[in-house]
């Protein structure tokens, strides 16, 4: 397996967003909303922690990630450029992975825009003699990257299923919405305890919880890696179809 062809596709996908105003708009909007939603209540939290911010992020990613990923395969299928890709000496696995890592880079750039928050918080709490616990912050961000990657793999799978970007977007948003609310008390009040416990385990919110607290929970890492691998694998299977 050579990585040059994979890197070429990674670069092409990345350039699409860098040469396209829509790419910047989506990333900046994500950054603005994420910053605003945290900052507006910053003095109400009463602690020098980013956990309230990490609680907000899944809801933003529910829209941001599918918006970034919806065109990945839908557009290729609609314009038939997928035929160009599949007639080149690059494997289906390489195609899916190159696109996945390009999208992950875009999402990571979006998350980078929120780094202003911990920096501001750092200066804010220093004046009060308190301090921010850096490892908690880093592990928290790692958890968010894992969650974004999981949502990306899901959105890419939906994008591979249809030529219509809007359908891919809506299907992803709805699925992520249900995955998020599986962990809420709202769902718990409706469902029997056993079912609710099972569903809560499936929710990325439950899994990211420990990481947001700064605890490296291997079960959560395993959950996210499994989630990502399953949906990337399903996407690869779709791209490999020759019906």
């Amino acid at each position, binding site marked *: 397996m*050579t990585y*040059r*062809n994979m*890197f*070429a*596709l990674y*670069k*092409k996908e990345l*350039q*699409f967003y860098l*040469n*396209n105003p829509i790419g910047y708009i989506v990333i900046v909007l994500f950054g603005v909303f994420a910053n605003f939603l945290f900052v507006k209540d910053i003095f109400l939290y009463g602690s020098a922690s980013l956990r309230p911010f990490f609680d907000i992020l899944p809801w933003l990613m529910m829209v941001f990630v599918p918006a970034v990923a919806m065109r990945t395969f839908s557009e290729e299928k609609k*314009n*038939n*450029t997928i*035929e*160009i890709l*599949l*007639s*080149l*000496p*690059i*494997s289906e696995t390489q195609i899916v992975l190159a696109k996945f890592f390009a999208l992950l880079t875009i999402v990571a750039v979006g998350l980078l825009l929120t780094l202003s928050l911990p920096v501001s918080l750092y200066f804010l709490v220093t004046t009060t003699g308190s301090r921010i616990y850096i490892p908690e912050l880093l592990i928290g961000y790692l958890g968010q990257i894992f969650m974004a990657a999981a949502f990306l793999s899901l959105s890419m799978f939906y994008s591979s299923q249809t030529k219509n970007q809007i359908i891919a977007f809506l299907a992803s948003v709805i699925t992520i919405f249900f995955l998020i609310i599986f962990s809420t008390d709202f769902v718990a009040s409706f469902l029997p305890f056993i079912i609710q416990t099972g569903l809560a385990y499936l929710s990325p919110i439950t899994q990211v919880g420990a990481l947001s607290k700064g605890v490296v929970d291997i079960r959560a890492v395993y959950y996210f890696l499994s989630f990502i691998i399953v949906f990337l694998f399903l996407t690869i299977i779709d791209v490999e179809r*020759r*019906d």
Partner: protein
Amino acid sequence: MTNALKNAKTFTFNMILLKSVSKWFGSQAAVDEIGFEAKKGEIIGFLGPNGAGKTTTMRLILGLLRPTSGKILVFNEDPLHKRLNVLANIGYLPENNPLYGEMKVWEYLQFISDVKNLKNPTDITDLAVQLDIEEVLEKKIEELSRGFKQRVGLAAALLGDPDLLILDEPTSGLDPIEQDKIKDLIKKISKNKTVIFSTHILSEVEDIASRLIIIDRGSIVYDGKKPKGRGGVEKLFKKSVKK
């Protein structure tokens, strides 16, 4: 290896071999029990009315479709199982020439060159001169005329100097002047290559092809030498294709 053995090997080596190949979409046969072989240096005009099965056959050769039954070998290898090996030596111009419109011409050609893992960057410059696209190298593909787009598609197919060229309706949608230019280009680039091009324009076959395959309603109705003299192809076509 002795010369005799080399010659014997060359003699039996088929660039393309199709044996009793069928492709069904549901209850509809797109191609039914077709078979032919193509030798090195042949320029095959693949002629047939719309919906006759030309594109399906080309996609089968490229491994973009799985045959329902039959055997396909390209360079003596199965294009589905040895996909990367086979595709590394094929240049393909798909029907309607789908391209990444947002890319500049040189970016696109560089992308194709990188995915094909080509080492020589002068290939692009040489091809640009050969196909007369130097003046549009800095332009976005979506801004180009149809004729230029077709030449860009041809340049992409020719990158890496592949032994086998598969061109699906290379002149469709072009005005007569552009059609002539593309025909001349195909003649120029096809030296020492096996070319299989589909068309429903009879004069094209007369001008370019050394061999003619006529397909009608999924079956090959003629496979042989191109008839001599002006109008010979038309007469043969009318005789072979059912009304």
